[in-house]
C-alpha cells in the first residue's frame, strides 16, 4: 500500500512537470486527484486494511493527497504567472508616441498678471475699485491737478470723444486715476466730517493717442493704487511698494526710488527694481543699467485729496500706478507689446 502510494505520487509529479496549460492541468487533476483516480480509489480501500495498518496507510495517503494538491496549486500559479508575462510582453506600447492633447483653456496673460497684482495687494488690505473707460476731462485731468493747457498734459496725449463742441470735455481715460476721485468721493460721502480711510487698487483699460509700435499701444491696462488715512507717509509708500516688488518678482529683489513728477502726487517717485535677469550686473533687458523701471508713485497731492473730500491738513496718502503689460513683458521677456491685443493663439497658449 505504502509503496503504491509512493508510486502514485512519483508518477503524478512527473506528469505534472509536462503540464503546460490550464486544460492539461485540469486533465491532470482528474487523472490524479479525481473521483476515479488511483489515489482516491486507494483511499476508499483503506477500510479493507487491518486496524493496525489503517492509521499509517491513511496518514500516508493523506500526505500524498496534500502533496499533490499543493503541487497542483503551485503549478496553477506558475502557469498563470507565465500567461501574465506573455500578455504583458504582447501589450507593450510605444511609450514615445505623443500623449493625447487635451484642450486646455487659459486666461489671457494680462488677466493672469492682473490677478497676481490684485492678490498681492488684497493681502495688504487693498480692495479693487473699478470705474469707467470714458471719462470727463474734469475727472481725468482737472480734479487730478491738471488744468487745461497745463504742461503736464503734454505727458499724456489724449483721445477726445466727439461731443459736438470744439473743446471736448469727454475723453477716453488716459489713466485709471479718475477712479481715485470717484472712490474718495464715494467713501467721503459716507461720513463727510470724518471720512473713512481708503485702501484701493484700480485696474482698468486706458487709452493714449500714440502710434502703435513694438513699445507703445493706443490701449493699455493700468493698475493704480491709493491709500489715504491719517498716518500715511512716504516711508510707507516705499515699504508697501517694496513689499509688492518682493512678492511679485522675488523675495530678495532690491528696489530704488527716484524723484519724479506727476501732477497728482508730491513728492513723486519712480520705483526701479534690480534687474532680475542679470541681478544688477547689466544686461540687454535692463539696457545695461542693472535696474528696471516698474512703477510711478507719490504722496497724494493736497489738491487731489481736497477734491476727493479729504482734508489735506489732516489726511495724507500715497498713490501708485503700474502697467501690467510692461510687467508681463519683463517677466516673460516679450519683445513686442502688440502681441497682447493681437491675440494670436500661438502667443496666448504659451501662458
Amino acid at each position, binding site marked *: 500500500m505504502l509503496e503504491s502510494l509512493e508510486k502514485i505520487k512519483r508518477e503524478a509529479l512527473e506528469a505534472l512537470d509536462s503540464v503546460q496549460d490550464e486544460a492539461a492541468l485540469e486533465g491532470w487533476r482528474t487523472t490524479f486527484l479525481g473521483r476515479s483516480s488511483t489515489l482516491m480509489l486507494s483511499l476508499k480501500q483503506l477500510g479493507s486494511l487491518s486496524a493496525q495498518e489503517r492509521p499509517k496507510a491513511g496518514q500516508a495517503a493523506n500526505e500524498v493527497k496534500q502533496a499533490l494538491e499543493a503541487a497542483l496549486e503551485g503549478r496553477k500559479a506558475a502557469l498563470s504567472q507565465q500567461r501574465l508575462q506573455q500578455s504583458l510582453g504582447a501589450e507593450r506600447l510605444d511609450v514615445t508616441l*505623443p500623449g*493625447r492633447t*487635451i*484642450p*486646455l*483653456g487659459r486666461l489671457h496673460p494680462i488677466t493672469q498678471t492682473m490677478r497676481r497684482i490684485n492678490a498681492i495687494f488684497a493681502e495688504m*488690505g487693498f*480692495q*479693487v475699485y*473699478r470705474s469707467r*473707460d*470714458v471719462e*470727463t476731462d474734469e475727472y481725468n485731468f482737472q480734479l487730478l491737478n491738471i488744468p*487745461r*493747457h497745463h*504742461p*503736464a498734459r503734454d505727458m499724456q496725449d489724449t483721445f*477726445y*470723444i*466727439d461731443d459736438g463742441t470744439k473743446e471736448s*470735455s469727454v475723453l*477716453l481715460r488716459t489713466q485709471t486715476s479718475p477712479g481715485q476721485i470717484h472712490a474718495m468721493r464715494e467713501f467721503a460721502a459716507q461720513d463727510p466730517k470724518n471720512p*473713512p*480711510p*481708503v*485702501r484701493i487698487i484700480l485696474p482698468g483699460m486706458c487709452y493714449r*493717442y*500714440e*502710434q*502703435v509700435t513694438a513699445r507703445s499701444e*493706443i490701449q493699455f491696462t493700468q493698475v493704480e493704487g491709493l491709500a489715504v*488715512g491719517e498716518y*500715511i*507717509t*512716504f*516711508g*510707507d509708500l*516705499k*515699504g*508697501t511698494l517694496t*513689499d509688492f516688488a518682493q512678492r511679485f518678482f522675488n523675495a530678495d529683489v532690491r528696489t530704488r*526710488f527716484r*524723484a*519724479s*513728477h506727476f501732477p497728482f502726487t*508730491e*513728492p513723486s517717485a519712480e520705483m526701479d527694481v534690480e534687474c532680475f535677469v542679470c541681478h544688477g*550686473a*547689466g544686461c540687454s533687458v535692463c539696457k*545695461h*543699467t542693472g535696474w528696471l523701471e516698474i512703477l510711478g508713485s507719490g504722496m497724494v497731492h*493736497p489738491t487731489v485729496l481736497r477734491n476727493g473730500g479729504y482734508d*489735506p491738513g489732516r489726511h*495724507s496718502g500715497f498713490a501708485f500706478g503700474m502697467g501690467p503689460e510692461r510687467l508681463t513683458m519683463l517677466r516673460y521677456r516679450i519683445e513686442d507689446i502688440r502681441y*497682447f*491685443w*493681437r*491675440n494670436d*493663439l500661438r502667443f*496666448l497658449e504659451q501662458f
Partner: protein
Amino acid sequence: MKVPISWLKDFVNLDGISIEELAHALTMAGLEVEEIEYVGLPMPTGRQITKLSGIAWDREKIVVGEIREVLPHSNADRLVLCRLFDGQKEHTVLTGAPNLFEFKGRGELKKPLKVAYAKEGAEIYDGHQPGFQKTTLKRAKIRGVESYSMVCSEKELGISEEHEGILFLGADAKAGMLLADYMGDAVFNIAITPNIARDANIYGVAREVAALTGRKLKAMPVKVKANGPTIKGKVKIEIQEPELNPRFVLGLIKDIEIKPSPDWVQRRLRLAGMRPINNIVDATNYAMLELGEPLHAFDYDVLVERAGGKAPTIITRLTKKGEKLTTLDGIERKLDEFTVLVCDTAGSLSIAGVMGGAETEVTEKTRNVLLEGAAWNFINIRKTLSAQRFSSEAAYRFSRGVHPAMAPRGIRRSLDLMRQWSGGVVNQGLVDKYPRPEKPSVVEIGPEDARRWLGVELSAREMAAILRRSEFQVQTKGKKLMVTSPDYRLDIGEGVVGKADLMEEIARIYGYEKIAATRLRDEIPPQQSNHTLEIEERIRDLLARMGLQEIITYRLTTGEQEAQRLPVGIAPDDKPYVRLLNPISQDRVVLRKSLLASVLEIVERNASLRERIAVFELGPIFHASEAGPLPDELQRLVLAISGPRGMSNWDGAETTPFDFYDIKGMVTNLLNGLGLWDLHYEVGEHPSFHPGKCSKVMHGEQQLGVFGELHPQVQTQYDLGSHPVEAASVNLDLLYEFVPERFDSEPVPAYPPVLEDLAVVVNEGTPAGQVEMLIRQTGGKLLTGLSLFDVYRGEQIGVGKKSLAYQLTYQHPERTLTDEEVAKLRERIVKRLEQELGAQLRS
C-alpha cells in the same frame, strides 16, 4: 534738454566727480539723464547709468597737432599737404579742407594752426557718410601721396555735423596734448518735468548739482559793461494786458558788427543742440540756454524808421479780429484772439514769446539792436503754440513758465555777450515795465510736517539747512520755519500745497534713499466684497475649465469693421457710435458696439493657422447715452468656437466639428456653474446667426443671452474657413442681477435609485424640450434625473417621426422605491406624452 558738462563747469566745480556719478545724482533727484552723449571723453565699460552714445577719442591716437606750413599738392588743386608737428615729430598730412587753402604757399606760418590730429588706427566718424558712422584710419595712397593720418573736422570728432572745413583749436592748445584732455566733453540729455521748469537751462542744472553735492555755485553772470549813453528816451513800453504780460524789459546795444560768433561759442551752441547763426542771434540763444530767459533781438533802426524817425513805442496787446502776421519762417499766420502780440505804433512785430516777425529781424545790415526780455502767462503761450502748431527752444521755456525776475538778467547777460562778440557799445540801463510783480510765496513748515508726510525725523535746523542749499530764504521761529521761495521759482504754492512743494524739495535734496521704508500702520478700511468682479472671475475660470482661451481685443474699431458681423443688406441698429474727435488711425475711430465683431476678428485672424478655435472675451461695449455726455458702458461676454471638438491626434480620435449643441452646452454649463439652474431656451432671432440655428437663453422673462451658428453669409464675409463658427453673446449686466450669492446643497441619497430607459416616437416637429418638460412635470420630485441618450430617425419608425430615448432616474429621499411605484409613475408619464404629443412608446 542738452547740457554739455564743460558748460556746467563754468558754474560749479566738478573735480573729483565722474560724469556717471553726476548723471546718477541728477537722475535720483528727478532730473533724469536719459542719455549721455560722449564727445571725446572716455566712455565707461560694464554697467551703465543710462543710455550712452557718442565717441571716445582714442587717448593715444587723437592729439593736438600744429600745422607749420600748408603746401600745394603737385597734381590736385583741391588738396593740400600740411607739414604738421604732433609734439614728437613732423608728418605730412594730406587734406581737402577748404579752410586751409588761404594758408597755401605762405611758407612757414608765423602762428602755427592748432588742429585735431588723428593718427593711423584712430577711430573717428566718417566725414563723407551721412549720419555718424565710425571708421578706423588706414594707410592709403592718394594721388601719389602716402596718407596715414588726418586733420579732423567737427563731424569726424562727433562735435557737430560740420564737415566743411577742419576744426581750429585755440592758441592754448599745445601740440601733443591729448585732444580728450584739451576739449573732451560729454552732453547730458535731461528730461525736464513741469515741476522743474526752472532747471531748463545750464545755470539751473548747475544750481541743482551744487545743492545735491554741497558744492559752491558761482554767481549768476548778469554783469554788463555799459559804456554807452543811457537808454532813457530811446524807447517806450506800453503793456495792455498785464495778466498775460506781467513784465516787459528792453536793452539797447549800438554799433555792432554782424559776424560769426567765436569758434568756441559755435561749438557750445551745437553741443547744446542749436545752430549758430551770427554773433547777435547766438548771443540771445547763448544767454537763453545759460539762464533760461528767451530773448528777442530787433533791428532798432527799422523800429525808429517805422516810428517816423522818433523813439519807438513797444506795445503788447491781444490780437485784433482777423489780424495776421508774417513770421521769421516766412509763413503768414492767422492769429487767434487770445494770442498776445508785440507791436509798435505802425503794427505788429512778433507773436509774444513764440516767434519774431520778418520785418524787424536782425540782418546783415543791422547796426543797432533792441533786445527784448519779457514774462508771459505760460498757459496763454501754450494755447498759442497749440493753435499755431509751432515749437522752438524759446517757446519750450515760456510754455513751462519763466519767472519775471529772469527778464532783466537774461538781457544783461546777452547784451554783454553781444558787446564781447560784436564790438558794440551797450547803452546804460534798461527800460523795464513790471505791472504785476510776482510775489514770492512764504510757507510755514516744521518738523511735524516732515514726520507726517515723509516719515522722517528732521530738526528745524536740518530742514532749514536743506532748504538753504536750494536757495530758499529761511527764518526760524522756534520750531517753525518761515520759508520764502527764491526769485526764479514759480512752483512753490501757498498753504498746504506750499508745504507739499517744500516736502518734495526736502525729500529730493535729503535723498529718497535715506528715507526708511516702513509698513502701513494706518487703520485698514472697512472691507467690502466686489460682486461683479467676483462673478467675472468665476466666468473666466469656468470658461477656461471648458477649454476656452481668453482673449482681450481693441475696444476701438470702425463702423465698417463691425458691420461685417451682419449679413449684407441688414442695417446695424440705429444707435449712434461713440466717435473719437481725434483718431490716430483710420481703423480705430469709434468705440465698439459689438463684442461679437471684436471676437470674430480674432477668430478670423487665427482661422488660417489652425482648425480648432475656442475663445471668449469679457468686456464692455459702448452706447451713446441720451441722458448725458458719457456713454453707457455695457458689460458683455462672447464665446466663439469652431473646428474639431477635440484636438487632432495621431490615432484619429474625436475630430467631429463643434456644432450648435456644443455652444448651447457651454452656455448651459456656464450658467449652471454660476448657480443659475432655472433656465429655458427659446427659438432665437439675431441677424448674425443662422435663422434655424439660433436660440436665446432665458431666466424667467429675462433674456440673458443669445447663441447659435453664425449666419452662412456672415461666415463668408469673414475669412473663417470651412468649419461653421458657433458663438454666444451674454448680457453680463443682467446676469449680475441673477447670480445668487449662495445656494443650498442637496444631501447625497442614502437609498438606491431606480434607473429606467424610456424611448418615445414623436413627430419631427415636436421639440425635444417639450417632451422633456412633460416628463419632468409628470415625474415630479421622484424623478431626479433625466438625460437624453439617443435621437433616432429611420424607416423603422416611419417618415416624419423621430425617436427620443431617455434615461430616467427615480429616487425617493427616505426609502427605496417599490417596483409598483416606479411602474405607476412610468405609466403616467407615457400616458401624458401620448395624450399631449401623440407620442408612441417605442419597444
